[in-house]
């Protein structure tokens, strides 16, 4: 578990990242490293809602499950990567280039997957 936490904390140091968290599909926070203005419970609830709604509509339409969602809003950006029974949420500030942090995000996903297999 501490390996997942370490991976998330390291990702938080990437440029433009305001916070990162691993949230289970039912909305519980497994690990998080967020800036003080972000509430982990709010992030987990909202992310779980978004991922569940998107996944449900995709499977009902015969499109299969989603692996990644990228969202750009007026004052911020977010990336959600589906893991096995959970997903990784990464929040960026509005000026961040998500593509620049793609490598760090992919690396964190690999680390979390490896750590989850070990546990």
């Amino acid at each position, binding site marked *: 578990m501490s390996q997942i936490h370490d991976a998330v904390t390291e990702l938080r140091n990437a440029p433009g990242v305001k916070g990162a968290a691993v949230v289970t599909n039912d909305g519980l926070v497994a690990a998080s490293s967020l800036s003080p203005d972000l509430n982990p419970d*709010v992030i987990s609830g*909202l*992310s779980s*809602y*978004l991922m569940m709604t998107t996944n449900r509509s995709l499977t009902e339409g015969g499109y*299969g499950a989603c692996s990644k*969602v990228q*969202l*750009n*809003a007026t004052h911020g950006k977010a990336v959600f990567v589906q893991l096995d029974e959970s997903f990784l949420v990464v929040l960026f500030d509005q000026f961040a280039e998500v593509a620049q942090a793609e490598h760090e995000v992919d690396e964190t996903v690999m680390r979390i997957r490896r750590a989850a297999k070990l546990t």
Partner: protein
Amino acid sequence: MHLIQRMKIWKELRRLAHRAKEQPSPSTFVDLGQVYINLSLHDKAVRMAEDGLALFPKSVELRQLLDCARRGLRNRRAIEIRAKLARSSSPKLFRELALIQMDLGDSNALRATCQQWSLRFPDDAGSWLMLGQARLTSFYRDLAAREGREAVQCLERAVVMDPAEAQTRRLLSEVLYRIGAVCEAQKHLQVLREIDPSDQEVDQLLNHVATLTDAGDDLNVLLDEVESHGSLRNSSLQAALPVPCARRSITEVRAGLTRVSGIVGVQKAAFIRGSKAIVKGEIKSARDPFLRIVRVTAKAAHRFARRLEIGSASKTVVEGEHGRICICVFGEVLAAALCDDACDVEQVLSELQDLVAGALHAVKE
């Protein structure tokens, strides 16, 4: 205010001003503007909102800040005018105050001002015109017969007092032909043409009214019919004109969708506004699950962004076994495309953005 309190506020203001300079974003400008509004420095808040809008022209929050600050300025101006009126009144001051109250939507205050105005200057038709305009706005909004009757009475009184005033006749003729009293409206329009034969708008109005059918001159019956049907009998000249514009916007949307579906790797493309959709590519019917997926995902993304207070979700990309679904939202319209892995997502998003922005612009036109 206590000196220490005041010092604290100025310190906070300096901090926010520094933040707005160093990290310009809509929220930093809004925070600073909000403090100025709380300190009743509405002019500074207006400047702050205008500076912010120069950098972030699409920000809804900054527009709301500008609106709020301008309302504050209007309120202050209204207080100043009332104070001036208490010292020495003039029709010009009354007109200015009434216009501000109309802008603020304060109908009770407007009524009181017009009442005072007509008592002090009984020969000035301006108070009746202003009152008629306010009643007319309420009538067009609620379609209540009582409001319509009062609007017509006020405007008729203003016409009797100043027969050469063009605006009064214009408003009166419009309400008359829109409720069905076409012949009555034509009489006022003929007078308007005599007042200014070079006015092309009057000619357009006369041509428009000539195409309408007269429903009689009993205004009470006509207004009651409008109230019971919940709609005006005839549309205004402006409403009759923009049909070609709406047609043009649909043509542009279709052309935009064709461009999107022409990008290598794009399988389906859709433009959605409310319950209506225009589609291109491998979509056979309105029941295609792609349309539902796009709607549901866009709504969920919008809710996520709003609740997290990061503004409105403008672009969303969903990756999975199906490929990539790119969604672009702007206001109430959204455009989306389903593409395969080889597709240039940036190009698709850029085309979708142009499509929704252009469509929204056309709708506003």
